[in-house]
């Protein structure tokens, strides 16, 4: 079969789909990943064939002048609502830049189904336009489910431009790479699969092969935080807080982030640049992070306890759920200074309950059908999507 995959130009949204997309190829299906032109190199580096559609969108334009914290006179709820509005303006704006061209591609290539990452709405629109199932792939916990009523009017307006009405933002079927115990009951037509991490391409450094001599603690803040704030203060605070503890600290950063760390890192810290987290986290005793879905789900799959400091998007929800499952403790962004990091790290490393909670989630994840198993039953997946349409 031919499966068209649609993603916005952001690694955090696309990477979780990569193992299922490759599983489809390995099962003998034909796959194309449609994305904005500027993102084709990132798609190419996954080994999957990219197709450029529409034009590039600069995400920063949507966030200019938006502070991380509420401004004076604005309550938390109003601030959250404003952020959600900006989000939908961004996701529908990105979709509008690609949808027309993606519909043309779908007409020419005739896919049997479209798989769209949860915010890749151009894929949802293209699927409806050519009349094939629209399969939504989440990047872990389905945090968009609870926002569906808020999101709907924005999407209705977008769909109307392509002559479509009554399009469900959740698609015909939702693929969720996440253990069921992390989610609340819902009424979505859903299939679950094992979260198999893909965190970007990169080499395994030789120091990572032997087991560490002391417990290893990874500190990492994803991609988005530094893109929006131009700093990595939380990593620097955490590094300071961990000084003197009997642990090896690894600061894991993306290629462009090295300059945001001290030029000469303290002696207890090793900087790992461009090392995929799925290679690093299985060697760690804990991971201190900003609560991005990719980081947390990778930690989950490796059974590593977490210290989470959420600041953006759905990070608070992830932090709460991981904590409720016993695998994490979380700190408020406002309180996360060196001392708080130190206390949280000591707690997570000392109390066996975090290790047990993380191991429980990892076991639950490992028991889910792999992406390969799901791809092997693609006929049934598509039939289930048709029933949900």
């Amino acid at each position, binding site marked *: 079969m031919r499966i068209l995959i649609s993603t916005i130009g952001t690694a955090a949204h696309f990477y979780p789909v990569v193992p299922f997309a490759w599983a489809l190829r*390995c099962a003998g299906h034909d796959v194309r990943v449609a994305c904005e032109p500027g993102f084709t190199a990132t798609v190419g*580096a996954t080994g999957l064939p990219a197709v450029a559609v529409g034009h590039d969108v600069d995400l920063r334009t949507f966030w200019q002048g938006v502070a991380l914290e509420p401004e004076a006179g604005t309550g938390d709820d109003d601030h959250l609502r404003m952020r959600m509005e900006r989000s939908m303006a961004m996701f529908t704006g990105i979709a509008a830049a690609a949808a027309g061209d993606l519909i043309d591609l779908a007409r020419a290539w005739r896919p049997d189904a479209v798989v769209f990452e949860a915010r890749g709405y151009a894929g949802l629109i293209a699927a409806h336009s050519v009349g094939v199932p629209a399969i939504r792939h989440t990047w872990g916990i389905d945090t968009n489910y609870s926002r569906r009523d808020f999101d709907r009017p924005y999407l209705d307006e977008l769909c109307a431009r392509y002559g479509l009405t009554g399009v469900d933002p959740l698609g015909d079927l939702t693929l969720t790479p996440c253990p069921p115990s992390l989610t609340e009951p819902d009424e979505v037509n859903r299939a679950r699969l094992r979260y198999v991490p893909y965190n970007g391409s990169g080499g395994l450094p030789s120091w990572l092969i032997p087991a560490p001599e002391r417990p290893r603690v990874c500190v990492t803040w994803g991609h988005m935080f530094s893109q929006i704030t131009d700093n990595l203060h939380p990593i620097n605070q955490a590094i300071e807080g961990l000084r003197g503890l009997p642990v090896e600290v690894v600061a894991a950063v993306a290629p462009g982030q090295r300059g945001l760390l001290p030029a000469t890192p303290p002696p207890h810290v090793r900087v790992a640049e461009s090392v995929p987290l799925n290679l690093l986290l299985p060697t760690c005793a804990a991971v201190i992070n900003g609560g991005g879905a990719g980081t947390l789900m990778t930690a989950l799959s490796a059974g590593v306890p977490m210290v989470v400091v959420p600041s953006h998007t759905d990070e608070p929800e992830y932090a709460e759920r991981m904590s409720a499952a016993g695998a994490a403790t979380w700190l408020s962004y406002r309180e996360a200074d060196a001392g708080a990091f130190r206390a949280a790290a000591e707690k997570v490393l000392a109390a066996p309950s975090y290790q047990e909670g993380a191991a429980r989630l990892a076991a639950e994840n490992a028991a889910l059908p792999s992406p390969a198993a799901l791809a092997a039953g693609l006929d049934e997946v598509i039939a289930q999507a048709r029933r949900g349409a």
Partner: protein
Amino acid sequence: MLVTAWAWPSHLYAMVPLAWAMRAAGHDVLVACQPSLMAAAERTGLPCVRVGSDVDSVDMVRGYALPTRRFGTPEAAASANGGAPRALRMFQANAEAMVDDLVRLTREWRPALIVHDPTAWAASIAAAVAGVPAVRHLYGADLVHRARRFLPELLAPMGERHGLDDLEPLGAATIDPFPASVQVEVDYRPAPIRYVPYNGPGQAPRLGPSDRPRVCVTWGTTMARVDSRRFLAGEVVRALASPEVDVVVAVTAAQRRLLGPVPEGVRVVEGAPLHALLPSCDLLVAHGGAGTSLTGLAAGLPQLLVPQLPDHQAHATRLVRAGAADLLPFDEAGPAELRERALRLLHDERARQAAACLRQEIADRPAPAAVVPWLERIAVA
């Protein structure tokens, strides 16, 4: 699962779908390769690690290009030949450059099995030292099997260095994507796998439909590196361009400048994976490299081949025998002959059927995902 190839991208590419199938089934996969292959290995999306040092393989390949009147016979390689074909000496040199590191990596990373390019012999040594199964993953005709009598002598120095006195160079099992009807005769039972093409990263072109037969011209990735004079895509394109056919030439970004003048109406597609281009074509004109030809067969395309290396010759000959290809020796590949043979092949119904049969043969083999359970059993055993 540890995967390894010496630093030749197409040998690694043949194993990528199976490696990803293992990963998508939840297994840990690591690709080990020499420094110069790391960039290509990283772009497969698979985790990879650097082992050993580089060998000037391109220079060694140059030493065994097929003799032609135009370019003469390549000068003999500087090293003593000792009777084994030159290609085998090159495989040995790469194995020497990889083996010590690969043995160390295998001890530390402790894979349950090693899957390797049949010409990456360091894997046979590392697997034997660690006591794990070595599984060969072919990329085309099993030419190593044909030369297997040379292997014990070539591997002996490395084996002795690592304390092995007995070594099975053909490993525990062989995975074979090459259709049985064109494969060489072997004395083992291969595990068949469907050839799912991975041709390197890139963008799928959006060519649209054509009212004329579409001919794809490509010269792979090897020949331009070995000897740019032997990169014939530009000459072929100029010979074929005409109102009767829709000519598309697929090149890498680095090959673009080697094409020379491109006639009007010919489309140059840069950096596209062949598997995303060939299904919209009717004929493939190429050099006969295994990856290119197999990708053509997976799309059911008849092929006009102008081989320039002994293994191109071996693959091309086998496709000719199956009726799916025509072979044009380099010295006869002038513009008129290229054009005539291409047009003849385009309208040759028997060639089209033979290619379609081979496509079906490929499609009938188990997909990489279906080979995973078999590999799991080998790893456990």
